[in-house]
Structure formats: structure tokens, C-alpha cells
């Protein structure tokens, strides 16, 4: 699910840039904010950071004692992406293994759908392995599948989310 959030971050401007006044300083702050935003990648609470949408306010700068840099509290709105337990969404298959299927959804690279969570479907080995059910519905690479998220995990070090999914429910399966 895509979320719109309002955040307040501290943006640090090095002392060399501080000769600029007015618009130039504001631009330096915005540029720095966008860089920080891009590098941050994701947090557990908000999910993956996609884009800054509006700059809402820039507070008074505070000088940092030892470096001479100035810290500006900036309030802004941004777009993020996070997946939730219980959510039903559409994802794309990118890997098929005997015991399950890996799917991706936006920036989330690894959603795992175990064979135990799609009991109608059977693994069909071959050069291009697939899962298939009695009604000839196929789960194969690049196919879109509607699934239910049954668990999520945030990995702090990698700044990545992983999830576990299920097809046990009505109206779930290949789209």
C-alpha cells in the first residue's frame, strides 16, 4: 500500500554553504533533504521512501558546536510504500522453486508463497517450472498473482521488507 506521510527531519548544511541567503539557502536545504531521502531508503514504521511531495516548512537553524554546520528542522510530505499483514495485493512472480514461489511487489523483492499455502496448485517441473491447478490456472514467471500477505518482516541492516503470502481464500490466484 502506498502511504502519504508527513515527516520532520533534521537537514544539516555545512558552514561553507551558509554564506547564501534566502532562496539559495532554501535550495541548498531542499537539495540536501532530497539526497537524505534517497539514501534513507526505508524505515520499519513508514516503509520504503519513494518521493518527497511537498516541502511544508523549514524551522530555525541551530548551529552545531564543533563543526560549525547548521541543523535545520524540515517538515515535509512524502510518498512511501509498505505492505501489511492481512493486506490483499497483486504481485509478480520472479522465481519458481519446488517448495514455493517468490514474488515481487514494487520495492519489495521477496514475498514468499509456500506450496503449503496454495494447496490447489501442483509443482510442474521442467525447463520452465510452474505451479498449476486442476482448472489449468498457471503460476509462472512474470505472471501477476493476487495474494494475501500473512506475515511481514523488516530487516534493519539491509533496510528491506520481506513477506510471506497465501492463496487460501476466495478470489486469490493468478490475475
Amino acid at each position, binding site marked *: *500500500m*502506498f*502511504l*502519504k*506521510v508527513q515527516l520532520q527531519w533534521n537537514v544539516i548544511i555545512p558552514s561553507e554553504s551558509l554564506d547564501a541567503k534566502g532562496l539559495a539557502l532554501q535550495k541548498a536545504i531542499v537539495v540536501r533533504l532530497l539526497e537524505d531521502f*534517497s539514501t534513507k*531508503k*526505508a524505515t520499519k514504521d513508514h516503509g*520504503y*521512501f*519513494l*518521493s518527497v*511531495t511537498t516541502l511544508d516548512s523549514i524551522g530555525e537553524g541551530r548551529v552545531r558546536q564543533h563543526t560549525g554546520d547548521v541543523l535545520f528542522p524540515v517538515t515535509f510530505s512524502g*510518498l512511501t*510504500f*509498505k505492505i*501489511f499483514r*492481512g*493486506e*490483499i*495485493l*497483486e504481485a*509478480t512472480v520472479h522465481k519458481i522453486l519446488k517448495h514455493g514461489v517468490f514474488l*515481487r*511487489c*514494487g*520495492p519489495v523483492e521477496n514475498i514468499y508463497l509456500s506450496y503449503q499455502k496454495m494447496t490447489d496448485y501442483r509443482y510442474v517441473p521442467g525447463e520452465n517450472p510452474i505451479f498449476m491447478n486442476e482448472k489449468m490456472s498457471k503460476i509462472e514467471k512474470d505472471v*501477476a498473482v*493476487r495474494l494475501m500477505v500473512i506475515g511481514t518482516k523488516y530487516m534493519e541492516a539491509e533496510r528491506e521488507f520481506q513477506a510471506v503470502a497465501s492463496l487460501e*481464500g*476466495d*478470489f486469490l490466484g493468478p490475475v
Partner: protein
Amino acid sequence: PEFLKAKCLMNCEVALILERKYEQLQQMSDDPVNQVSQVFEKSLQYVQRFSRYKNPDAVRQVREILSRYELAEFELCVLGNLCPETVEEAIAMVPSIKSRGRVHDDEAIEKMLTDLSLIKKFE
């Protein structure tokens, strides 16, 4: 659950935002591809594939129609993303719309789906 309180956006709304952003970057720089993060790129590809509505007016209408029904942000977006065709499917996608205390009867859900399906036809 926590997600019921956040402001959510449908895939089609996000597609418009990210495409506009990407265009701005193309105009400002020689090398727009290097300006965007992997997260941005993967998200853009995703919303372009999974948007049921492409036209900005249609996107606005979807939000407008769904907003008439007392839905939480999250519920609204799941419905706008998955476009259920029947009342049964809508309830399967968003079970919370039928939970205790909610005002939605089948007739109201049916009307909502009919209104949504009309938008698609005239895209």
C-alpha cells in the same frame, strides 16, 4: 490495525505522481535514470503495470466515488486497486467493510461497484 489511520494512495494516483516527477527530472537533467533511486524505479514500474485507470480525470472520479461510502483510507485504496466485480469479491478483498457496526449493506456495495465500472468504460 495501524494502517487504517494513515493517508493511503491508490496505484493509479501514485502512477500520476511518479510519472510527473520522472518528467520533471528528465527536463532538469541529461541523465534522469541516475537521478532516481531503485525504490522509485521499481515502484513506478509496479504502478504502471497495476493501475486500472490511467486517465487523470478517471483517477479523480474513482477517488470521488469511493469517498462517498464510509470507508477507511486503506479500504478505499484496496478497492480502487483491485476493482472487484461483485459484492462477494469486494467483501473477500476487504472483509472489514462487513464487520460489526459498519453501515454497508450489499445494495450499497453493489451501487459502488456499478458506479466504478462506469468509469472504466469511458476511459
